[in-house]
């Protein structure tokens, strides 16, 4: 594994079949990259193909940046590279927020006038966390009142006579 601090973005080959849809994420990421810079290097395989960091690269291109910190990783073969790429995206979903803890932390950041738009949550989400210590949909309660679906137990049919048991 080799670290290159100023890898030329124009030399990076994007993974064309990337199954992640990240165009919306790109817009959200730009202000964060402007604020914090690129702290987390992207992962590029031995053939120059991007394996982790597609959203970052798209955002940096939009920002007109020419280089990016990169880790060059020698994967055993393409399947391993693809496997890693999917796992890298998927593993982010495994952890869950402890919203009560998060509420405390965001509250502290707010108290020192930290720009809360720079923590990745949108304003509506931050309001919900600060007020309720949770993110929920405004209409959940109304939704349930109007749309609660009473489940039906699947009918058991006698295999011999075909009648309901």
């Amino acid at each position, binding site marked *: 594994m080799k670290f290159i601090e100023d890898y030329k973005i124009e030399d990076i080959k994007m993974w064309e079949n990337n199954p992640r849809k990240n165009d919306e994420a790109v817009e959200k990421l730009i202000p964060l990259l402007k604020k914090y810079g690129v702290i987390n290097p992207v992962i590029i395989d031995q053939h120059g193909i991007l394996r982790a960091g597609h959203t970052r690269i798209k955002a940096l291109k939009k920002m007109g940046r020419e280089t990016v910190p990169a880790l060059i990783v020698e994967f055993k073969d393409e399947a391993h590279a693809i496997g890693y790429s999917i796992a890298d995206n998927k593993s982010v979903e*495994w*952890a*869950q927020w402890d*919203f009560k803890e998060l509420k405390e932390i965001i509250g502290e950041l707010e108290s020192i006038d930290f720009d809360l738009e720079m923590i990745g949550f949108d304003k509506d989400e931050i309001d919900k966390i600060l007020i*309720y*210590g*949770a993110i*929920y*949909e405004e209409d*959940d*309660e109304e*939704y*349930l*009142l109007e749309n*609660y*679906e*009473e*489940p*039906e*137990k*699947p009918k058991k049919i006698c295999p011999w006579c075909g009648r309901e048991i």
Partner: protein
Amino acid sequence: MKIFLSALEGSEAFDYINERIDRYLYNLMSFYYLTKNDNYKEILRKSEEVMIDSGAHSFQKGKRVKWYEYTESYAEWIKKHDCDKILGYFEMDVDNVIGYEKVLELRKILLKATNKIIPVWHKNRGIEDYIDMCKNYEFDIVAISGFKNEDIVDSQYQRFVNVAHKYGKKIHGLGMTRIDILDKVNFDSVDSSTWLQGVVYGRIDSLRFNKRVSRRFSKEFAKENRKEIMYIAYLEAMEMQRRYLYK
């Protein structure tokens, strides 16, 4: 998410398992079995946290039931044994047998013993009752059934959880152990006896890469090594507890 493992206190392999495990994580015990043996003392001593189920559903099987008497003895047990390790006690949610009105009367008996009584919502109570429970019930844990197609369709679990969280309640999914739901819905806790159920059918369930995989045994092997298999199954279930603790 905390997964409480149930049925250890009534397991035939309890002594075998208990001799081999120094510390348990989370266990759910049934009051019905607490009256039958002293295993609960060890489980309570060695667990991080414990929840107690009324055991009403085990109790009623094929019997004429004296519900008030049973509830009184449940309340007495609570008075004697309540401690910080016990997060809460599930109410006598036998709506389908005696109706909600009587269940509420039984709840009152339990509430005299402690305020840590967990209401268990069922569909017969109506959806307004669920919202009201989340808004106004005084204890901070509420429960819904996790059994498939009992009270809630799979696609609506998250909505139920959201409403509970909105009103600052923790929500427990009773008997909810389906991985596909656990991965999507952020219950605060659930309980599971699947570690034991697998053994009954001659297999040990494990979680590998977020998928439940089973190792099967021949009948003869399972019969000869039953307690060892139960012990391994419990260890695997503890691994699942650890895994989901961070979800």
